């Protein structure tokens, strides 16, 4: 599903964030990307979403070269990815319902489908009672669950979670992790970027470890070792 081929990213100030990074993520895999803060995890995630362009090398999403996509194609690709962020990135002037419905609007879904699906997803995620609330009226855990509802409502093939538990207490972090595992069991490809040792060790799935912009370890059943 995702291929990084000799990807290097150097910022204009000369800082090399990723250096000759190559790996492949297959359909249905659950891959954790770990590393210290500043190791290059977020840059790597941003590149998959087309938010950053590599200085050299190629990134392929479903065999299509992201680096050669125009703005229209990038938007089309982003619609096929469900993204979850540490800072939630919710639409603050829209209600819980509207935040999820907006994603379906982006996909140009019919009103009937939106009216049917959004409450279902929100109930599944435990926010059925809060559909008329605004994001600032929710707790951190609820906001992250809303972000997850938004990421899964269009049934994307790939879920990317960039430090999704970074702002959450252990209980809510556990809930988010359980949700991601559930999504993986129904066949979704999941990429999880984190520096939470406990989470990684509990998962027991493939782990790519990055340090100073280089992949130092890629293990099928990895552990957090830095």
């Amino acid at each position, binding site marked *: 599903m995702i291929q990084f081929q000799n990807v290097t990213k150097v910022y204009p100030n000369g800082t090399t964030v990723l250096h000759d990074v190559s790996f492949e993520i297959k359909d249905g895999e659950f891959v954790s990307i770990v590393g210290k803060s500043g190791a290059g995890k977020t840059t790597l995630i941003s590149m998959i979403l087309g938010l950053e362009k590599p200085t050299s090398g190629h990134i392929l999403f479903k065999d299509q070269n992201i680096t050669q996509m125009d703005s229209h194609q990038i938007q089309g690709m982003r619609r096929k990815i469900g993204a979850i962020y540490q800072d939630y990135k919710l639409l603050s*002037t829209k209600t819980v319902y509207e935040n999820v419905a907006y994603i379906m*609007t982006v996909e140009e879904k019919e009103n009937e489908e939106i009216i049917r699906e959004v409450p279902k997803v929100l109930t599944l995620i435990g926010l059925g009672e809060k559909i008329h609330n605004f994001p600032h009226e929710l707790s951190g855990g609820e906001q992250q669950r809303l972000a997850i509802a938004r990421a899964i409502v269009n049934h994307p093939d790939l879920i990317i979670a960039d430090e999704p538990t970074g702002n959450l207490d252990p209980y809510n972090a556990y809930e988010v992790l359980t949700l991601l595992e559930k999504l993986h069991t129904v066949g979704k490809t999941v990429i999880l970027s984190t520096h939470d040792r406990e989470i990684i060790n509990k998962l027991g799935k493939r782990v790519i470890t990055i340090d100073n912009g280089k992949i130092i370890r890629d293990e099928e059943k990895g552990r957090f070792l830095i």
Partner: protein
Amino acid sequence: MTTNTKRVIYFAFTDFYRNKGISIAAIFVLTVTTLLITGIFFVHGMSNYLIDQIQNKIDIAAYFKADTQEEDILNVKNELLQEAEDVKKIQYISREDALENFIAKHGDSDVFSRALSEVGDNPFLPSLNITTGTTAQYEQISQILNQEKFTDLIEKVDFSEKKDTIEKVFSVTSSINKFGLGIAIILILFAMLIVFNTMKLVIDSSKDEINTMRIVGASNWLVRVPFIIEGGIFGGISFFFCFLITILLVYILRSGLEAMIPGFSLSGYFMHNLWLIILIQLGFGVGLGVISSYIVVRKYLKV
């Protein structure tokens, strides 16, 4: 209307309603600046009226010999109308009319009455009073009248005596026009800059939202159009307020201004230019609101 069009209109109206504070501020700024533009339009109308009044008071006169036939004078008038460009007015004043005008003006004065009776006969000459728009045209008319073929008919043309005054008046009015135009351009640019920056502040407050919309794959159209419609809503509401305030101000200032500038009707000017005023206010408010939104959102679509 397609589902997507309905959706962007819905997004625009909900954003407008939910960001009440920002919306009110934007409408206020648009109303004030549109009023400023409307004010410039009214000042332009008043100054044009005043300049016209002054210029209309300037004329040159060709005095014909006392025995010239009326038919010959009217032939000269027709020739002037054909040969000289943009002649505003040519008025024929016969000897009898000139005498009547004099009596009407100075009939109460013993000195003038006695002078007239001493002369006995009508001392006035028939004349053509000519009004044009520029000094160059006066010069052209003077040249036509001084042609050899008219020497037997024309006693004198008073252009050379009035030349300095005419040039001074036209130079002053032209300077007023240029100065007024300069001030108007500066004020219009200033108003446009204020509106643009206000719309920038409005959209800057939604910067993170636009970023999120792009990250989840929203098309440029879906992100941009609600902001453009919102700009139009700001402009539309500000037009409504601006038009009401204009009517109110015309009503309040009407009599005062008409006393200050005799002959100028503020309400008449307003009614005569009603559609143009509506167009200016709508064009400035809605047009600038929409264009500013379009430009500012574009900056954030590069994500």
